[in-house]
């Protein structure tokens, strides 16, 4: 209560006039209760945030270990840097290279990905403790207690900043453990922390502006996406430094916090001054967020909610219509993101040869996928495998909507009408299955079209892209059907089962060969069984088998949902 106590007399004094001058005594009172809320937030996140931080630490450990193995000696690193620096695609997708030390290679290979993950961790933490609290009505209860207007946001920011600080320390320690220089390790930790703090500030704003917690997360996520894209453009447009082993990025990189982090050049010629823009960003976003808090009602966004139709359209008046309406936003969001990704990959498919030279890991991975086939074909197979897992994430998320509907009590009035449970589940299943198929078709078309536009190769090459995407549909359906069964039989574990299965699919399908796992382990993932079209001919047996498994899981789920109590 250290924050609360000094503020008490202020609250008790005769009402201070509102906003008469900048230093009026109400300022401190607006923070009353911050420490208590912070303790509550820490308690609520006592599992989630440590898991995030530890996972990122383990991921970094594994990455550094693998990079140290591949590029252990100076000659290998020089070779890496020399091929990497002039390669536009590699610069855009992996990141700019600034030197030939082991640390510099680690930064190039990992910083972009870690910056995105740290950003996601931060925005989710902020929105979870601000806007989501308001949506559940808990903030109202808290707000009626002795809690200042700014206390919830302050507590969320302090918690998120502290989590990022801890992560920065852990990252520095891991890098030091590999005998990397102290200055670089310290700067790398600070830069990632800065990225986390910056996106936390961005989320603090979107949490005030957006109409709901979901869209607050979405808007802040879009900012991360734009930041990543800007630096990809800036690094892609950059040029090779006179040394031949470093890159000078173009100006768009400087528009992005992720770009600043990379331009900090940890383990090369450290530029400590990039910490200044981070400081400015954090200060500015937090200041804006606090100003917005003062002008906003609890539970309502700055963006007004528009009036809608007074009657339901014919399309909405059925379970499938409702399911589509509920899934529509997610479908459109995933489509936009994945079609753009597929288009970008399609556009660079041509340069895959030079890209592969920069990474022995990738080359090894490609070769392990299938015997024979051209490099471009292998690239398509590899890429579609990745994108199919992303669509699998959509399918898992979409089918878990059933669970959300049940837990929130919205399924109850629906199932009290003449809608059978099986029909309710089937409506979401149909929408998610159709949307996944449509998404994959769009991905294939986008990849093929972009490839065709760049290379002028259409015909069989174009259809290779499309077919490679379509052939993954049954594997995605297996994931979705598994979630249906989990929701019906083990509802409490449905989310864990769904996301766990997705994680297993990702590890087995894409990285399994790299880890040299035995085949029977790899066979657990539905994605392992997808025919490697267009690198090899389409085999119908695995496709039909996957379809049968999906149908079987879904049928079992539909039958089982009739047998249990609804959670109310």
């Amino acid at each position, binding site marked *: 209560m250290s924050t609360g106590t000094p503020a008490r007399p202020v609250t008790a004094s005769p009402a201070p006039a509102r906003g008469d001058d900048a230093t009026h005594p109400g300022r401190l009172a607006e923070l009353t209760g911050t420490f208590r809320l912070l303790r509550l937030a820490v308690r609520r996140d006592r599992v989630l945030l440590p898991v995030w931080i530890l996972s990122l630490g383990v991921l970094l450990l594994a990455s550094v270990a693998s990079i140290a193995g591949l590029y252990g000696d100076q000659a290998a690193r020089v070779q890496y840097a020399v091929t990497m620096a002039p390669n536009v695609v590699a610069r855009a997708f992996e990141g700019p290279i600034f030197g030939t030390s082991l640390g510099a290679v680690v930064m190039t290979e990992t910083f972009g990905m870690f910056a995105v993950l740290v950003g996601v961790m931060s925005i989710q933490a902020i929105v979870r403790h601000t806007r989501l609290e308001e949506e559940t009505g808990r903030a109202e209860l808290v707000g009626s207690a002795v809690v200042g207007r700014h206390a919830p946001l302050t507590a969320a920011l302090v918690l998120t900043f502290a989590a990022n600080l801890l992560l920065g320390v852990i990252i520095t320690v891991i890098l030091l453990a590999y005998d990397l220089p102290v200055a670089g390790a310290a700067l790398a930790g600070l830069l990632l922390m800065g990225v986390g703090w910056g996106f936390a500030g961005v989320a603090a704003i979107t949490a005030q502006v957006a109409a709901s917690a979901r869209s607050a997360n979405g808007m802040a996520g879009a900012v991360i996406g734009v930041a990543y894209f800007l630096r990809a453009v800036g690094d892609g447009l950059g040029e090779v430094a006179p040394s031949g082993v470093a890159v000078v990025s173009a100006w768009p990189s400087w528009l992005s916090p992720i770009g600043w982090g990379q331009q900090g050049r940890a383990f090369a010629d450290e530029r400590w001054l990039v910490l200044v823009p981070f400081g400015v960003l954090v200060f500015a976003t937090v200041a804006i967020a606090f100003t917005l808090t003062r002008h906003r009602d609890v539970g309502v966004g700055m963006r007004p909610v528009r009036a809608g139709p007074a009657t339901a359209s014919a399309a909405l008046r059925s379970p499938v219509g*409702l399911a589509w309406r509920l899934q529509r936003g997610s479908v459109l969001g995933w489509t936009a993101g994945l079609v753009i990704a597929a288009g970008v990959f399609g556009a660079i498919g041509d340069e895959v040869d030079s890209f592969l030279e920069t990474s022995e890991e990738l080359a090894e991975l490609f070769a392990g996928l299938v015997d024979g086939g051209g490099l471009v074909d292998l690239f398509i197979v590899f890429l579609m495998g990745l994108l199919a897992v992303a669509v699998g994430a959509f399918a898992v998320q979409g089918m878990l909507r059933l669970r959300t509907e049940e837990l929130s009590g919205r399924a109850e009035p629906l199932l009290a009408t003449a809608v059978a449970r099986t029909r309710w589940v089937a409506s979401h299943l149909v929408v998610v299955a159709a949307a996944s198929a449509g998404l994959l078709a769009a991905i294939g078309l986008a990849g093929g079209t972009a490839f065709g536009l760049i290379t002028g190769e259409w015909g069989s090459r174009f259809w290779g892209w499309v077919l490679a995407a379509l052939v993954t549909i049954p594997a995605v359906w297996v994931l979705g059907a598994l979630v249906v069964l989990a929701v019906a039989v083990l509802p409490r574990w449905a989310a864990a089962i769904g996301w766990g299965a997705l994680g297993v699919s990702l590890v087995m399908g894409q990285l399994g060969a790299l880890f040299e796992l035995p085949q029977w382990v790899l066979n657990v993932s539905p994605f392992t069984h997808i025919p490697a079209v267009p690198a090899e001919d389409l085999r119908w047996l695995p496709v039909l088998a996957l379809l049968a498994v999906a149908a079987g899981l879904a049928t079992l789920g539909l039958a089982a949902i009739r047998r249990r109590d609804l959670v109310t």
Partner: protein
Amino acid sequence: MSTCAIHVASLTKTFGPVTALDRFDLDVGVGEVHGFLGPNGAGKSTTIRILLGLLRRDHGEVVLLGGDPWRDAVALHRRLAYVPGDVHLWPNLTGGEAIDLLGELRGGLDEQRRGELIERFQLDPTKRCSTYSKGNRQKVALISAFASHVELYLLDEPTSGLDPLMDTVFQACVRDVTAVGSTVLLSSHILAEVEALADRVTIIREGRRVESGTLAELRHLTRTAMRVRTRAALDGLAALDGVHDAEVEGTRARFEVEPDAMGAVQRWLADRDVVALTSSPPTLQQLFLRHYGQELTADEVADDPDQVAVVEAPR
């Protein structure tokens, strides 16, 4: 079976170690408004969810409109409408869309009646459900229910978020549907509402039926409150059989009388030359308090403003 809309006998439902319903009985005749009373956690909502086939019964007999609510859920749901006490709606749908959707899935609703109800309940159907208060979400469910022509209305504390004006509208709606022969099961702990509407009442407590009957029958079990002024002194009133809580001040008295003693007490009073006499009929609240009065915890009293009023100032 045709005279019985709901028949529940010896119904038992447990959730892990908790027994929610313990050999519970409930009978609702066709065309009646049946009040379903009990404090929070007594098992009202569990009963209604079993009647809806959302929960499965452990033991006992449940017949709803001649069918089995678990097995024949869909067919039965075409013939009933349900309003939960806590209505959750899809945040990105408008109120109007939610009304239409739920009505349509039930088997269609009466467009003219829908418009009429929206006006009577003063609901803005163009607003998103995320912006509605609890009372407005409840209006959405009520409008959707009453705009459907069904045989049975299952209403689970349907007015807990409504203001008194809207309460009146709700009562009018219930009378409208019973006028055309529909049956209403009205769970509530707002006693005035049940008194105003219900033909028969079942009281549930800790998963068991403790009382059931017409209001007249139940009133028979409770005492009438009387105030009297006479010319002769009222000494000895407190000692009469069947007289309770008497406060006598010379020729004035306030007291309660058991139904069986009413005749004797009136004859006794007549001998003392009555100047003024008021008697208030026993209320359901007294009945309720008779069953819960002693055991009511502070929480339960605080939950229901009506009960607080009774405890502090009996009518």
